[in-house]
């Protein structure tokens, strides 16, 4: 019941409707322009890079900002305090929020992919690699979780929005730039190890890395990462990838529950 109410609220929100339109428009425009400009080919090309970057740029930004503001809005408006008077556990509240937000973004992506396929049909067919579809789903599941923990921490909508932007830019840009800058001072093998650590602690890099692993294009990352890509392409590596992905979903949700609990104690 709670999930239904939440889903209704999210889908009715003007924010969400604008985000859905914007994401669909940008996603479709880039894919269709690339399809018209370049022939279809296998491997990692500018087309697949654009595809991947649109997903990694837009989707986390929208999810994290809307996800965090959703929770923070509940706290700020007193809706969360009202809900606490009902026999509902904090965990149920968090999971309900998580499911509703995930479903809403799944709908956004469903519409966007549908429009891409339909317009692609006019251009003789566009490829929508299954790995990218799965990556999109993982992106939603991970970043909804991250958004919820940010919202639980921020408590006000404005702070949640600011925090989301900071975290988004940190994951997407700042960590990479910091590593690139560090590369000017440290040896290649040190930088390589730092990057491997970053892959695991940055969900954007984790998803990007996953794309290369599961699409058998790990060579794009270069010979320096032969060892780590070879491991993750093995069955054990796949299992570890699944475990780390699950942790990226579960840990923020647990942290969000904890933050709400601490807030109540305060």
């Amino acid at each position: 019941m709670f999930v239904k109410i939440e889903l209704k609220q999210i889908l009715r929100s003007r924010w969400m409707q604008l985000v859905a339109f914007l994401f669909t428009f940008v996603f479709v425009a880039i894919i269709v322009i690339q399809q018209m400009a370049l022939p279809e080919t296998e491997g990692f090309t500018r087309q697949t890079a654009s595809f991947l970057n649109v997903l990694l740029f837009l989707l986390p930004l929208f999810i994290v900002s809307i996800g965090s503001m959703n929770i923070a809005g509940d706290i700020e408006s007193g809706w969360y305090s009202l809900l606490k008077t009902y026999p509902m556990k904090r965990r149920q509240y968090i999971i309900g929020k998580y499911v509703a937000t995930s479903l809403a973004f799944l709908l956004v992506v469903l519409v966007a992919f549908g429009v891409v396929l339909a317009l692609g049909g006019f251009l003789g067919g566009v490829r929508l690699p299954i790995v990218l579809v799965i990556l999109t789903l993982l992106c939603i599941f991970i970043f909804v979780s991250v958004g919820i923990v940010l919202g639980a921490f921020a408590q006000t909508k404005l702070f949640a929005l600011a925090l989301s932007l900071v975290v988004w830019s940190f994951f997407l840009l700042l960590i990479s730039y910091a590593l690139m800058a560090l590369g000017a001072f440290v040896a290649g093998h040190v930088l390589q190890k730092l990057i491997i650590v970053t892959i695991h602690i940055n969900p954007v890099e984790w998803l990007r890395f996953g794309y290369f692993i599961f699409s058998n294009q790990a060579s794009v990352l270069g010979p320096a990462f032969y060892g780590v890509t070879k491991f993750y392409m093995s069955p054990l590596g796949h299992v570890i990838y699944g475990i780390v992905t699950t942790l990226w979903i579960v840990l923020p949700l647990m942290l969000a529950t904890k933050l709400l609990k601490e807030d109540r104690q305060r």
Partner: protein
Amino acid sequence: MKQLGFFLLFFLFTSQTAYAEFDIQFAIDQAKTGDIIHIPAGRYEGNFMVKKPIILRGEEGVELYSQNNNPVLKIEHAANVSVENIMIRAKNKGIVAHEAENLELRAIEVKDVQVGIHIQRSKHVRILENRVVGNQSHYAEKGNGIAVFKSEDIAIEQNTIEQVQDGIYVEEVKQINVQRNKVKNSRYGTHFMYSSGVEVLFNTYLHNVTGLMVMMTTNLEIANNTVSSHNDFNSYGLLMYDTQQAMIRKNSFQNNRVGVALQKSSVIQIQENRFQMNQTALEGTKVDDGSIVNDNQFTGNILTARSDHQGFRLVRNFYDDYTGIDVAGDGFGDVPYVAVSSFGQWMVRQPVYQFFVASPSVMILTSLDQQINKTEQNLLVDNEPKLLSDMKETAFSINSIQLLIGLVVSMCGLWFWKRGMRV
């Protein structure tokens, strides 16, 4: 019926081996200069030796094989030898020619071998329309498809080679023409070492570690080849190391990790090629000022060019990511195209940076670079970027199934959305 079946089986079995009693070596030994030996269909085991000017011509279904490590067919100190239309299976080498002159090997199929055809210290050799298929082992344990050492005036044409170490390996050869061959799933498609007077024309290289590897070779022409899908960790479409005087024109480099890489090379002209959808189209380190990259088409590459501080000259190429305009109407952009990008340059110096290739952070950095580097005047700058591509436009076509699926999916999405709002 059963008896008829047995009879047919017996017939099939005996027909395979019916002429296997024919003694090839005896026929060779007895032949006079210029004789044609017709080998009847069948399987022949042995290590055959030719030392005189004869023609060995197999009928349909001739197979020579050897179970030891010696070559199946050896041609030694002989002139005017021709071998045609046979199949060879060997544990080690298929055909070896040593000090042969006017040798022609045509329509030979060599399978499951370590080395297909091995030519050494020979002159005027023609290797035509053969097929070499190696074994399934690792590249390090394989031999080459066609290998030529210390020879002169060699033509290797219309061969198909796959699953070997180097499709065509050429070392210390003067005047060689490699034409219309197809090499795939091997380590290097064609590998030149210490050679000169090289022509590589109309070949197709697919899915090798590296398509063309040229090392310490001079005076080359590489034209009209298709070099595609070389995407391994250290892959290149064409890699030239310590090479001088090369013309690379009208080739298609598509979907490679690096399209063309020049290392320590001089007087190289890269002209009228098509670089399409490579991760990096061109890479140059220690390239001299006499080298030039002109009138090429760069489309869909993630990175157009990267180099060390020396760079290389770019002239009148078409770049699909050029954003300038042509007010003068002369067909060339009014502002220079700057291919240099910070990330590309870093990647040359520190290979670990490749991890970030085409990542969101690098895409933003490259966009900023394009604005900032507009003032760059020396490194990887094309002052006359061509504005019109000579690529043909693809014909308009509709994929109705995908169109229908797309409409259904998007309509379903919108319906669920509307329904979700009402719940």
